[in-house]
């Protein structure tokens, strides 16, 4: 649905993004993750056709954004970073205007506007001037206009910023449900959001893509090992020795846990999946198995690891 190839953008001498390539298929929610000024907004502006790239190509639903701009733009619903809206116009009039620009026939416009107004809980404010709305309601209007024409592709630049927690949950649900039939690319700073709604993550830092993967795969890839935590009641030395004999275990560290039990942290080969064997081994020895858990790296860890590698290289 979206094919981004070798995208490069210079602002004067400053390189905003360089050789950015990724793909988003139909029915996929792709998260765009990166610190401030990493190039997220620049990439989105290029995909939506607001700015041309210095080099590289973007195809949206098969249309090149530069040579078939109008056709490509017709497939896109866009929510820019700061949710820009006209202030001297009512919510309903605004949606009607945006729907018209996207080429929606009046009858369809009416039914769709009714639907998005109800869906985004804007009924009460349908005839209020947008300038009088609070930040959260403006954000809802912004999302409403992006999904209004049921676009094939949705580009959302930080869609859940500034709205209340209940609405955040609803918005994520909405994006998720839209992601079933449409293609969604969203950028965010909020890491749990990515693991909740995105099937794939593109991590970008200083204009370069540093990782593209499923959120759960990222942790394995980065660590180079899988980690398992197990809590066992039993003689610590024997337990450690038994665990070490299991195929795939590289290292075991032990620390004391609650009520005479110990917590063992195992570093294992990627893909070895030793949990079943581990559990039966412990039970066979007659020790008490209190807990067993595969540890995934949190997205915060991944994010930090991916974007701050230079600092790590410095001697401590």
């Amino acid at each position, binding site marked *: 649905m979206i094919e981004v190839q070798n995208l490069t953008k210079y602002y004067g001498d400053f390189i905003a993004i360089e050789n950015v390539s990724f793909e988003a298929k139909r029915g996929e929610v792709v998260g765009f993750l990166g610190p401030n000024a990493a190039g997220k907004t620049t990439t989105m*502006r290029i995909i*939506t*056709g*607001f*700015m*041309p790239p210095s080099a590289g190509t973007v195809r949206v639903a098969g249309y090149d954004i530069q040579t078939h701009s*109008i*056709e490509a*733009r*017709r497939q*896109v619903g*866009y929510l*820019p970073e*700061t949710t*820009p*809206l*006209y*202030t*001297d*116009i009512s919510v309903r*009039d605004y949606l009607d*205007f*945006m729907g*018209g*620009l*996207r*080429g929606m026939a009046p009858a369809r416009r009416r039914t769709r506007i009714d639907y998005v107004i109800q869906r985004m809980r804007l009924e009460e404010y349908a005839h209020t*001037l947008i300038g009088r709305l609070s930040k959260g309601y403006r954000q809802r209007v912004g999302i409403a*206009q992006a999904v209004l024409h049921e676009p094939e592709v949705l580009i959302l630049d930080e869609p859940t910023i500034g709205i209340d927690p209940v609405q955040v949950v609803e918005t994520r649900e909405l994006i998720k449900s839209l992601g079933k039939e449409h293609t969604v690319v969203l950028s965010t700073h909020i890491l749990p959001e990515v693991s909740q709604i995105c099937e794939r993550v593109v991590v970008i830092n200083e204009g370069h893509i540093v990782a593209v993967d499923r959120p759960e795969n990222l942790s394995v890839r980065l660590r180079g090992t899988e980690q398992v935590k197990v809590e066992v009641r039993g003689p610590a030395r024997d337990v450690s020795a038994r665990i070490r004999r299991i195929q795939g275990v590289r290292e075991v560290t032990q620390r004391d846990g609650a009520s005479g039990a110990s917590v063992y942290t195992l570093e294992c080969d990627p893909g070895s999946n030793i949990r079943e064997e581990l559990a039966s081994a412990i039970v066979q020895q007659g020790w008490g198995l209190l807990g067993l858990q595969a540890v995934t790296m949190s997205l915060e860890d991944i994010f930090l690891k991916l974007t701050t590698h230079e600092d790590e290289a410095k001697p401590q």
Partner: protein
Amino acid sequence: MTNTLLIARKELRTYFGSPIAYVIMAAFLAFTGLLFIDSLSTPFREASLRGFFVGESFGGLLGQTINAAFVLLLLGPVLTMRLLAEESKLGTIELLLTAPVRDFEVVMGKFLAGLAILGMLLVMTLYYPLLLLIFGNPDIGPLIAGYAGLLLLGGLFLAVGLFASSLSTSQIASVVIGLIILLMFWFINQASNFFRGTPEFVFEFVSPRTHFTNFARGIVDTQSIIYYIALTAIFLFFTVRSLETRRWR
């Protein structure tokens, strides 16, 4: 075309949703009303709007310096100042230019909205000629020609104002830029006093004031019509280009 009309309709709605349209209408009516009275307060009163339209040697005391065309020149950039500057200030330009709409449709839509307001302004002043018709026996030709001239002239002012509005995110700055361009054009015919031959003709021809004087006298010259339309088109074209450079910056 549909997109152009959509944008024009939205802009008109915005004009009347904010005080700006009303303020400009009030200002225009107040100024032109004053000029109308002034143009009739001459020793040799005649039932005509020449003094109102172009002032100068026809007008009363005020009309020596100011006339309806000049009031339009001052208000034109104010009318157009927000059309594009506000879009870039609010950031809404990003949604407008990523919608499946061509740049020139955006520019034409905005221009049409301004033209519609201009039309309303002129219609509201129609009671001046109506008064002349009731209380005098004016020559109809110059009245119609004068209004046609004001419409063409106003269109040019709007195109220049719209171009100025595309250059900046500040509405104040776009008014100032618009006024500078317009005043330069307006008074450039004065430079013809310093030359003989071709330059004299060029400076006369380039100024919208020269052409408008003919209209007010009832002379509708095809050359003048083409002049106004061409110059308006050039500034609209500049505006489209200016929008494009914003993309490339």
